């Protein structure tokens, strides 16, 4: 199925197997015949085809197998961002499963705010009440961890203070630890360092213990505080061990080949506005945006002719179904706005009936599906 936007085929959604043209190593959409350069044989493309200002189509497919610009799973770290309720956590879990199926060793991480210990939705999706502050096994090639500021601070102090005895003493000195955790940005620094230590952890054979860390970040405000942290703190503390740690983090996060943010949103006016504002905020932090994902996009079942005919049926008063119809219209308008304003690769994911772990499974299959 290929859904075209109201102003022509500017937004093509490809939900089927892409026709393969064997000799030319290009493929085209089965329905609208748009040629998709760079898509390999038998790649199943589930994504949005966005056209750059130049008019050259840019294939945006959710990876695995084919050559595509949206490639989140080959990075070292993906920071999942977005307002609450947009499906950030579900998508984090689904991406982890998809990457694990590709053979990547994945670590999913979430922040354990002291006030949030009772709930940990990412852990719940994997059937655990909550994660520990050291990685624990969740599924094949998937570990989960709770990023914790105190744990990060301890690791940091231990790495910095050469005298082991001093480090141990420091870690046990309550006033010192309380000071570090009460001060505004030290809390974020602890989380940052915990993340960094997990990214740098290696196995006995020297390989990274996890190929990919997917960090389900806290809602927008805190996300930005975390991503801006290195820049702000480095102004304050330009030299010394903390500066070294911040720069080591930057070397990963500010290298688009290693670290990207993924901004999740919903196809509604306000969430899109907030996503655009978040993207603007992320620009300050030198973090590349790997993808913008519009989640839960309701399918538009009507052809143009049917939509015109529908107007004759909708007479007086709202019917049961009118609200759904309005949602479809808002989703179309929202995707159009994203397409106009987002430079990063854009991906639209279909609304699905499943919930919880079933939804994770379904989405991960959708993300990782490759035709034989």
């Amino acid at each position, binding site marked *: 199925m290929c859904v075209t936007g109201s102003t022509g085929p500017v937004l093509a959604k490809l939900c089927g197997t892409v026709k393969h043209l064997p000799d030319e190593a290009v493929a085209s959409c089965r329905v609208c015949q748009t040629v998709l350069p760079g898509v390999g044989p038998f790649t199943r493309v589930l994504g949005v085809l966005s056209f750059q200002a130049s008019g050259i189509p840019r294939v945006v497919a959710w990876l695995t197998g084919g050559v595509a610009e949206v490639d989140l799973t080959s990075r070292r770290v993906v920071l999942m961002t977005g307002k609450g309720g947009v499906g950030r956590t579900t998508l984090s879990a689904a991406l982890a499963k998809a990457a694990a199926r590709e053979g990547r060793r994945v670590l999913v991480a979430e922040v354990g705010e002291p006030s*949030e210990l009772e*709930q940990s939705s990412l852990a719940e999706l994997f059937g655990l009440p909550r994660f520990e502050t050291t990685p624990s096994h969740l599924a094949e090639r998937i570990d989960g961890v709770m990023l914790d500021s105190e744990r990060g601070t301890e690791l940091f102090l231990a790495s910095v203070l050469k005298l082991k005895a001093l480090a141990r003493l*420091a870690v046990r000195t309550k006033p010192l630890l309380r000071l570090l955790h009460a001060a505004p*940005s030290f809390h974020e620094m602890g989380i940052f360092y915990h993340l960094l230590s997990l990214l740098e952890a290696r196995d006995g054979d020297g390989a990274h213990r996890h190929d990919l860390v997917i960090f389900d970040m806290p809602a927008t405000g805190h996300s930005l505080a975390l991503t801006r942290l290195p820049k702000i703190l480095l102004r304050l503390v330009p030299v010394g061990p903390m500066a070294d740690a911040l720069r080591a983090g930057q070397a990963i996060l500010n290298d688009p080949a290693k670290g990207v943010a993924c901004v999740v949103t919903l196809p509604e006016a306000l969430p899109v506005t907030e996503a655009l504002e978040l993207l603007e905020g992320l620009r300050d932090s030198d973090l590349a945006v790997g993808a913008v994902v519009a989640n839960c996009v309701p399918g538009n079942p009507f052809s143009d002719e049917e939509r015109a005919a529908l107007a004759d049926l909708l007479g007086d008063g709202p019917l049961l179904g009118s609200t759904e119809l309005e949602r479809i219209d808002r989703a179309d308008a929202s995707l159009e706005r994203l397409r106009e304003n987002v430079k990063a690769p854009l991906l639209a994911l279909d609304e699905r009936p499943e919930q919880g772990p079933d939804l994770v499974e379904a989405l991960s299959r959708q993300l990782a599906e490759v035709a034989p």
Partner: protein
Amino acid sequence: MTVVADLVREKQIIVCCGAGGVGKTTTSAALAVAGARSGRRVLVLTVDPSRRLAQTLGVKRNSDEPIRLSAVREREVGIEAPGGLSAWMLDPKLVSDRAVRKLASSPEEADRLLRNPVYGQVTQMIAGMQEYTAMEALHGFVERGDYDLVVLDTPPSRNALNFLEAPGRLAEFLDGRIFQLFLPRREGVLLGTTRKLVGLVLGGVFGRQFYSDLTTFFGSFSGLFSILNGNARRMSERLRSDDVAFLLVTSPVREAMVDAFWFDDRIRQLGLPLGGFVLNRSVAGNAERRQPDASLLPADPSPHHHAALEKLLRLSEKERRRVDQDRDLLDALRDRAGDRVPVLAIPEIGDGVDDLPGLAGLAGHLLNGA
């Protein structure tokens, strides 16, 4: 009339809490409109409004004072004198600068404090400052007495609870025993040893220069912090009084409901007065809507008409499922609320909710029910 109508007429402070993405900021603005409509002078303190809402309210970042909605706009949303609506966007740096100027012993002292390099950065570390400055701003505006009602939109999502706990967390930060470690000329064997350790650790971790800036910062600000801390503590007490109401805003999404219930527990634990639940974007009320059927077809229907009807039927089935789901969630919310507090369900308004007519419409729902 709804119970929310009583709240906006009677209370002096309304605090909106809820998960991110449930329409909390917009609801706060609509509550303020509703309050102003009932003839009160209302101020809404927003934390993170969308640009559209900021434009609608006419607020800008870095404005010194709340901005009153123009008379034309006020009339457009049904506000008549003596009612009035002002809005202010919380700017952590502005709030703390202002507090420093107000509390410093002299203008020169204030300038010196504001120039400290550590101070300059601390206010940028928004995550920690936002909750505290929300409290400080609320304190400032309530104390001035220019407004009959102040509506506070809490920081987004997970931070919102830090706001409730800000005084506690800040108090810990400002705890005398911790401070003493940084203040010069205080002796005692234990203290001296701990301070040496702190000096060693912090000097090693952050470098000597920063440690010295930090020490100066704590030294200069300790007096100020204790005043600010006192304000925050008083405000935290103030939030437990009768003329305050906390409203829990949620949407018909399982995660948002879980958060709302969690907030409810915390609010109870902290002894704060809960005013009620507001369930946004609920389609629970659509149950009575007419089911599409063949009678909608025109006299001489085309194949497109038939196809359109068939697809519309499928949409109505989908909507029916959402209606059922939303009704279950509304029931769960009502069970939870019991006879303690009311639950108000607001229908989905769709686009333009952040425009003037949208806010007016939402205010109408809040005042008169769906």
